[in-house]
């Protein structure tokens, strides 16, 4: 699809960059709330071409990273229950919990299966009628429709050996929590492209209306991101915070009502625990009472000891945008993608891993 390749056209990037450099905003910090944007911004080198007054920040946009150790421990406990087969997206496997990762649980001989899609998890349940297949569901609004669809299909097919352990989260309560904490000064927000394809661009209007912050929904190509930065700077410069949607080829104002409708039919909002933030009310997607039969937590009631964090890992502060990866003592020395201490170094979308791969592998001298 050649028209999409054009969004990587460096000749088109130059004039947008010129506009960015000519903006007169004073020092500003722009934050994205999407792991895909974190990687795209590093990979395209956008950080390094920004003028000195524009600082790019990453918020809690990596669903693997914001998963708490307590939730990881629960998944490990489920995997160890008799007759249970745990299915999970591959991203979760290497994330260290309080004691062990799911990869280590698997190495001990417990059945942990990596799936690409909930469709594969459903297939596992169909192929193993004697096993209880538990899908460990992580992700934000983009990923939630796949989990909802799986529950709806399991019910339609009368599958009694399929359930999910949902630790899925909503980006907007997360973004609000970060802004309400007031630890980091944010002047504009790059809105997540694919989350917004589900919930709609209009879901972000609360930023200009309630926080006085401009928001620019962006795609993942270099031109998308540069245009989003320019749109934010233009709104900051003019003192007119609003909503800009530069990803109209995917994101509609109202989003995907069918997908979001399925999510809301199966899940309700409840308190979720985020790494670095603690409990955030109304930020988690929990199975509704009428789908309780598909809730692994209710079905198996795993017992989990109190969770603990690695004392040296500063993922929580990285996720809040308070510190940058090299500010962490163990970044790039003890903690590397090969030997990660925390999820921000495990996930390819984690700030630490992105920083390590694209920016500078070496640690900052302490």
């Amino acid at each position, binding site marked *: 699809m050649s028209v999409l390749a054009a969004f990587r056209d460096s000749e088109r990037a130059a004039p947008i960059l*010129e506009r960015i450099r000519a*903006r007169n905003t004073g020092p500003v910090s722009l934050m994205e709330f999407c792991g895909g944007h974190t990687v795209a911004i590093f990979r395209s080198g956008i950080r390094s071409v920004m003028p000195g007054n524009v600082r790019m920040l990453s918020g809690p946009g990596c669903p693997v990273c914001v998963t708490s150790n307590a939730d990881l421990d629960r998944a490990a406990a489920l995997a160890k229950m008799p007759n249970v087969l745990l299915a999970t*997206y591959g991203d979760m496997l290497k994330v260290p919990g309080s004691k062990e990762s799911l990869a280590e649980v698997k190495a001990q001989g417990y059945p942990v299966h990596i799936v690409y899609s909930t469709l*594969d998890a459903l297939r596992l349940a169909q192929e193993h009628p004697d096993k209880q297949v538990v899908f460990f569901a992580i992700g934000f609004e983009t*990923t939630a429709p796949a989990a909802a669809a799986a529950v*709806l299909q399991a019910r339609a097919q009368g599958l009694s050996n399929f359930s999910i352990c949902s630790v899925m989260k909503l980006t907007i309560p997360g973004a609000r929590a970060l802004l309400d904490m007031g630890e980091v000064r944010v002047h504009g927000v790059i809105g997540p492209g694919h989350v917004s*394809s589900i919930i709609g661009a209009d879901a972000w209007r609360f930023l200009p209306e309630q926080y006085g912050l401009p928001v620019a929904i962006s795609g993942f190509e270099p031109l998308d991101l540069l245009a989003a930065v320019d749109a934010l700077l233009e709104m900051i410069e003019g003192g007119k915070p609003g909503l800009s949607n530069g990803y109209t080829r995917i994101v509609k104002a109202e989003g995907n009502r069918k997908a979001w409708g399925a999510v809301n039919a199966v899940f309700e909002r409840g308190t979720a625990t985020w790494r670095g933030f603690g409990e955030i009310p109304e930020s988690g997607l929990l199975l509704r009472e009428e789908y309780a039969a598909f809730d692994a937590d209710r079905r198996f009631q795993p017992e989990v000891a109190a969770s603990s964090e690695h004392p040296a890992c500063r993922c929580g502060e990285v996720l809040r945008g308070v510190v940058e990866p090299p500010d962490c003592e163990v970044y790039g020395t003890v903690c590397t993608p090969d030997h990660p201490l925390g999820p921000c170094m495990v996930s390819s979308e984690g700030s630490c891993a992105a920083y390590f791969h694209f920016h500078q592998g070496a640690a900052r001298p302490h």
Partner: protein
Amino acid sequence: MCLAVPARIIELRPDSMALVDIQGTQREVSLMVLDGDAAVGEYVLIHVGYAIEKIDEEEAARTLALFDELALHDESFGAPTPGDEA
């Protein structure tokens, strides 16, 4: 995690499934949460095995045209912005 890839629909199959081409690789995906009908030849965005949105080529072309228009506009007002010298 929220990354999604463009794919072209090759064949519509029963139970809201479809065979798609993702950069030369064929894969069966679900159209269950896609809003509206999809036809063979259309492009959709795939995330964890589900088509989540159609890709609007006209909108893509419009966005590019807007970039080009802004670039032309810039050439006509190349004067430095006040305060830039700081």
